[in-house]
């Protein structure tokens, strides 16, 4: 049985504050990234795209992990809240992944000399992007609420299981991508302290934007679910 989503939802109270925090931290992050952080000795100002690229990368993976959690939650409990979480995170994840690929491409041209290369990390990201576009397409083409949620949840589970597999499958190719800059095995971050601080604030700001977008999108989805369930009743 599918429960109504009419019960009060906590994001209603935190949403405005999330918005204020997201916008405020984004302004601080923009200042730190463009003004406060020093110019890189090798790449010059081009490197500043790292303050967009790295947070987007982190959020792309986080968003799809949240889709996985929401999908499992729906399959386990059949509570519409989990489906709303999954669709909200998937939409924001697709948006951020698209921006992540575009930002990476813009950075690749002056540093690698090409807009795109068949690097394992790039290929994995592009495949992940396609999988979640398929996920959203499947949702948009299903009309019945429960069927749509179940079908999408299955794809949400398979897709996240497939991501590490796809990544491993393309590792045989030579990689142009640089090694991790911040989370390096057995060493401190390969970043100047000011650059590291600016990157940390950027990651925080983008994470808050992600939470804000997801909360807003969830509230829309929950209202839509209520209308669908009322119409069916």
């Amino acid at each position, binding site marked *: 049985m599918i429960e109504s989503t009419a019960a009060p939802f906590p994001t209603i109270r935190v949403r405005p504050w999330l918005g204020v925090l997201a916008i405020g931290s984004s302004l601080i992050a923009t200042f730190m990234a463009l003004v406060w952080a020093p110019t890189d000795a090798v790449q010059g100002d081009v490197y500043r795209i790292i303050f967009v690229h790295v947070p987007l990368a982190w959020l792309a993976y986080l968003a799809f992990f949240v889709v996985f959690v929401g999908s499992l939650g729906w399959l386990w409990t059949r509570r519409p809240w989990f489906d709303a979480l999954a669709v909200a995170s998937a939409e924001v994840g697709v948006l951020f992944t698209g921006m992540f690929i575009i930002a990476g491409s813009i950075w690749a041209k002056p540093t690698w000399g090409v807009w795109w290369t068949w690097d394992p990390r790039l290929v994995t990201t592009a495949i992940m992007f*396609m999988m979640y576009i398929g996920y959203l397409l499947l949702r948009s083409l299903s009309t019945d609420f429960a069927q749509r949620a179940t079908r999408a949840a*299955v794809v949400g589970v*398979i897709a996240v*299981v497939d991501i590490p597999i796809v990544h491993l499958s393309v590792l045989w190719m030579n990689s142009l991508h640089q090694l991790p800059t911040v989370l390096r095995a057995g060493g401190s971050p390969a970043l100047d302290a000011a650059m590291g601080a600016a990157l940390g604030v950027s990651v925080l700001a983008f994470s808050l934007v992600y939470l804000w977008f997801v909360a807003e999108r969830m509230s829309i989805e929950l209202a839509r679910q209520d209308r669908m369930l009322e119409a069916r009743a």
Partner: protein
Amino acid sequence: MSAFERTLLIAARELAAERRRPDGLVAALTFTGVLVIMESLAFGPGQAHQPGIASALFWIAVLFAATLVVTRSFDRELEDDAIDAILVLEGGREALYAGKLVAIAIVLAIVETAAAALSLLLLDLDVALVGHLALVGVLGILALPPVVVLTTLLALRIRARVALVPILSFPILIPQVVACTQGAAAALTGDAATSLGWAGIVAAFALVYGVLGLTIVPAAIE
């Protein structure tokens, strides 16, 4: 009736339907033949003759054929709502999935044999390790259908199913196609160890997605 017997029953029913009206098989055979010829011409005979390219063209053609066979198989189920009777039976969903896999693997074996003969003939390929090539071929037809059948079940009764199934399944199948291509190319060039290594990866994918499908199918069909 045990789960194994139910699976065999579904597979036998599927094969009987295919024998009576072999439109799925005929379409897949024709489509694969056209694709192999078209791709080879697009690359040019000199390029397409190379083991890596020939293998890639072959496995892409087999992937399309698998999609075609599975789609046709479920079209038949939907024509007279025959699928509904299976789904309401106890263990019917698992039997439907497993039975379809068995039957589609057999149909695909015929398609693959014909496509392999055509590729070897037209591209004048030398096969250094016939046994290894056959092993990769057999494992390939076990590795591709689980994902295609699962995504077809998810897209069942959706208007744009024909477009949706490739969109959902092809990104998931990239590792399988890469492994089959590399394994077949190594078998053509005589690199036994590499071919066996890739064959092992294909076998692992067949097992993982076969089990994952059986686990998730009961929840996937409403």
